[in-house]
């Protein structure tokens, strides 16, 4: 992310932030097909595995192994599955809340917008306690027919051991 910054309050920052809030609301309201329509056909939706390493070795993300690594069709499969009545990990559905903060907006490569945002996602399902998922999303957004679309999302999760049963929700 080396392009020009778009500061909070600027028109592009406002538009991107609003877009991310709308997206989060779609997820929290289980509107998975509508959520999926926000992605471009060349999307990579990717959560690499993280490992515990010393500082000198970097942040510990393993580019060779992922927890999620979807293209357009497999992401669509994931979204459609959540709308079926037999995806037992989410049926009956979890209640999620996506808190999106620290939105930073820059000009990206090839006319794209480079956005980073922090997330805290809470999940509670059936009678079980809260689970928390936190991390950073690095998005490449594209303006298509007057609307924003997500062309790439790299989800940098904070946990090296996912202590929360599974990753059956979306980020």
């Amino acid at each position, binding site marked *: 992310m080396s392009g020009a910054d778009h500061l909070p309050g600027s028109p592009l920052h406002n538009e991107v932030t609003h877009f991310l809030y709308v997206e989060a609301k779609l997820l929290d309201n289980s509107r998975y097909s509508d959520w999926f329509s926000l992605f471009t056909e060349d999307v990579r939706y990717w959560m690499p595995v993280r*490992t515990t390493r010393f500082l000198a070795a970097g942040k510990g993300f393993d580019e060779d192994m992922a927890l999620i690594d979807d293209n357009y069709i497999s992401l669509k499969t994931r979204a*459609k599955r959540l709308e079926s009545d037999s995806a037992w990990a989410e049926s009956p559905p979890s209640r999620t809340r996506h808190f999106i903060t620290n939105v930073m907006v820059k000009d990206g490569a090839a006319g794209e917008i480079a956005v980073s945002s922090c997330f805290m996602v809470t999940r509670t399902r059936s009678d079980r306690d809260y689970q928390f998922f936190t991390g950073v999303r690095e998005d490449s957004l594209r303006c298509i027919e007057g609307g924003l679309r997500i062309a790439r999302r790299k989800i940098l999760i904070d946990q090296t*051991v*996912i202590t929360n049963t599974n990753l059956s929700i979306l980020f």
Partner: protein
Amino acid sequence: MFRTIKPSAASADRARLSGGETLEQLVRAEEGLVSRRIFTDPEIYRIEQEKIFERAWFFIGHESEIPNPGDLVTRPCGVDPVVLVRDDEGVIRVFLNSCRHRGMRVCRTDKDNARFLRCPYHGWAYRTDGSLVSVPAESHYGPGELEKEKLGLIPVAQLGIYHGLIFATWNEHAPPLKEWLGDMAWYLDIIVNRTGGIEIVGTPQIWDVDCSWKFAVDNFTDNVHVFSAHQSLVQLGMLPNDPDFACHGNMITTGNGHILHFVKGAPGEAAFLYLGLPKEMWPLFDKNLKPAQKEIAAAHGISAGTVWPNFHWLQLVTSGEMNGHPHAYLNFRLELPLGPTRTRMYSWLAIDKAASAEYRKISYETYVRTFGPGGIFDQDDMENWEDCTIANVGPAAKRHTLHHTMGVNRKTDPNWPGPGRAYSDSYGEMTQRAWYAEWRRMMTAADGAGK
């Protein structure tokens, strides 16, 4: 010596549980009647620590994960933390990951490359062969107060490597690995040596599930669950809309609790031949396998197996997306119990060393999309393990058994070309029954070898 296992009066006392029952009464494996109590009872969990997790052989990792001298990864051996390291001479070693001084965890990252294993607490430093090399403030020890040569890192009692798979045990009385594996080694050849060897891709996915470790194990060789548990994938056209589709194959028990199955696809389906590997790799099977091993590999697409108690492979053929083409991958699995109702899962992707770049990529994508915590198959399994656990912690539930009777009267298949007891029809619960029978044997055995 760390955790020496002695036949003791305590073991005999434990034959009778509080409430008066014996483990023999709770686990009637041959009849397919296993008490729900064994899954969630803290008393039984405590007995497992000594009788299973100090005694059995455990998978630690694969040689390819530590290719160079000084490479190390941290793992469990049973339920104790270990460091798996390749020493300066290239020798693979496994040590308790705990300093000899005050017990501090010595290696505190998931992987590293190190010349010395240095404890951060007071600075004791060990060579990669485990020997203690330096102790700060050493001059303050008087004569005879510090016997450095006796204070190396605590090694596992035995270490064994089979086709690059590294196993270890804390039990000096355990039979050697090859004997422990027995006939299972013949089947492991098919899985890991069919094309001349495999290697691990990246690092394992690790995640925690609120379940009994035994529910995760039970699920692993269960073919019957696929149609119901993964019904969403039937609806998405990723699995056949036929409740019998995974029944064409054999269930096999090889003794010592090791269990596996092989499943065929529909007749003539090339994606389900040679374990789903691409055609250009098929000639390698002839070179690396015995004729009977090759015959089995050539005729089947799917195989899952459990090296008793908690190491598993899954050789699967599936699509990673709606209406996609099926592709193969090889997954290894390990359960680390964190308590009676919490389990840490380790999941690795393995790939044949001979694989093309194209097959590596599609195998990786198919694996990540379907298995592990984010996989759209696997995540529904975790829901089942958790709810099986939640529903069986209460005293009323614990008075009842589960039901594992499918195929309890089935005869063995005399035409199966491999060793062990094979049963045709891959819908059956003989694998779980064999696993529980071995669990009962180890839990009630008096001596350290589990005899």
